[in-house]
């Protein structure tokens, strides 16, 4: 055992053996961690609007994920903006986009959805929140997958679609 230690074989060049039946089910998607929270949030926000603290909570300075997730970049990983367009219209646009780009819609909520494509490299979640009687906040986030894929797709394809009036 100590021979193995001394040659520091804990690494890629060591013997990696795969024993059948000796694996644990691993969930690769953040969704399972956030799902319960989101479902709760959904119930409230569907009927109520965002309050000042909801908006304040959007701050990247309050999101400590950056400490743990090296790829997480508040600027590149998501965006929020205010829209006067009805959420139903917005969601329709997003659904059409998903169809055209052949993205699989993984989760659908009243005012939001999560889609996936490019073999799991692209994962985008879009959500709409009511702000006032006439204003809504649209939030688009990378919900997993490759950071580069998200950035490219969001900037060049999805964002223009959503913002077009």
């Amino acid at each position, binding site marked *: 055992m100590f021979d193995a230690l001394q040659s520091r074989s804990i690494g890629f060049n060591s013997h990696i053996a*795969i*024993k059948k039946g000796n694996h644990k089910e691993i969930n690769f998607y953040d969704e399972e961690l956030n799902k319960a929270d989101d479902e709760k949030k959904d119930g409230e926000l569907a009927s109520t609007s965002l309050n000042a603290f909801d908006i304040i909570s959007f701050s990247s300075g309050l999101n400590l994920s950056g400490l743990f997730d090296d790829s997480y970049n508040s600027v590149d990983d998501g965006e929020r903006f205010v829209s006067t367009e009805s959420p139903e219209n917005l969601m329709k646009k997003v659904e059409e986009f998903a169809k055209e780009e052949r993205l699989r819609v993984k989760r659908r909520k009243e005012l939001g959805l999560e889609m996936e494509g490019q073999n799991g490299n692209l994962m985008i979640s879009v959500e709409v929140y009511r702000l006032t009687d006439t204003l809504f906040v649209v939030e688009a986030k990378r919900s997993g997958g490759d950071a580069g894929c998200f950035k490219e797709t969001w900037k060049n394809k999805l964002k223009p679609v959503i913002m077009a009036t």
Partner: protein
Amino acid sequence: MGCFSSKVARQFPGHEDPVALASQTAFSVSEVEALFELYKSISSSVVDDGLISKEEFQLALFKNRKKENLFADRIFDMFDVKHKGVIDFSDFVRSLNVFHPNASQEVKIDFSFKLYDLDNTGFIERQEVKQMLIALLCESEMKLADETVEIILDKTFLDADVDKDGKIDKSEWETFVCRNPSLLKIMTLPYLRDISTTFPSFVFNSEVDEFDDIDSAAELILDMHKQELVIFWSGKLLLSNRALAKLVNGYRRHGRTSELSKLLLCIQQDFHALSQSSLCSDVD
């Protein structure tokens, strides 16, 4: 591991023993040690003094040491428990403890109240909320007219300020948060649930180098065996699927899934002769 504290106390001022920290927080000893890995990298990123400065905190959070942000400032101030202008390891662990999924609602409510009470008066005043709202709008792409801001403030205070004194006290905050639980979402970090998964480098790290004796090395191996990261097979020390899964998760969390696919293919090809089953299907 007896050698841990003596070496460390020299390099890290104000450092507290991981066993003590573990007993007073929701973290296990090995989780505290994983946090120490993170702490080491953050605290040495600008000045290697074993302490986290504001700049280093900004660098870790935003990948930009010069980025100033009202809310990051507040978090930093709250982590800087002893008001020394720097965060030491025990501050770091005890503060992150509040964000642990198992921490009580009470401590999260308390932390968030103090967070938003910018001038520490014991009340969250309307002016403070306005200041925070405007700060948020500046950092995002969201644009709102002044009157919309006032409408939002009005509505928030209508909901939260029960005694109508223009400010939110601690008990009003508690009631408000109970009715709007999503407000505490920022107070929980899912990453802390299984912190050793977040740092695959901790799995592969040769802490072995730092051991003075074989007994401590054996202890590490046994600990890893307990966590099912290595397996003893035919007199060899091997990585388990779980360790591989942690590695995979590491790639995923770093947003490098396209590299990961290539890596898995390489491993599969290399071990095609050795393996009795396909790596990919097991990892799936």
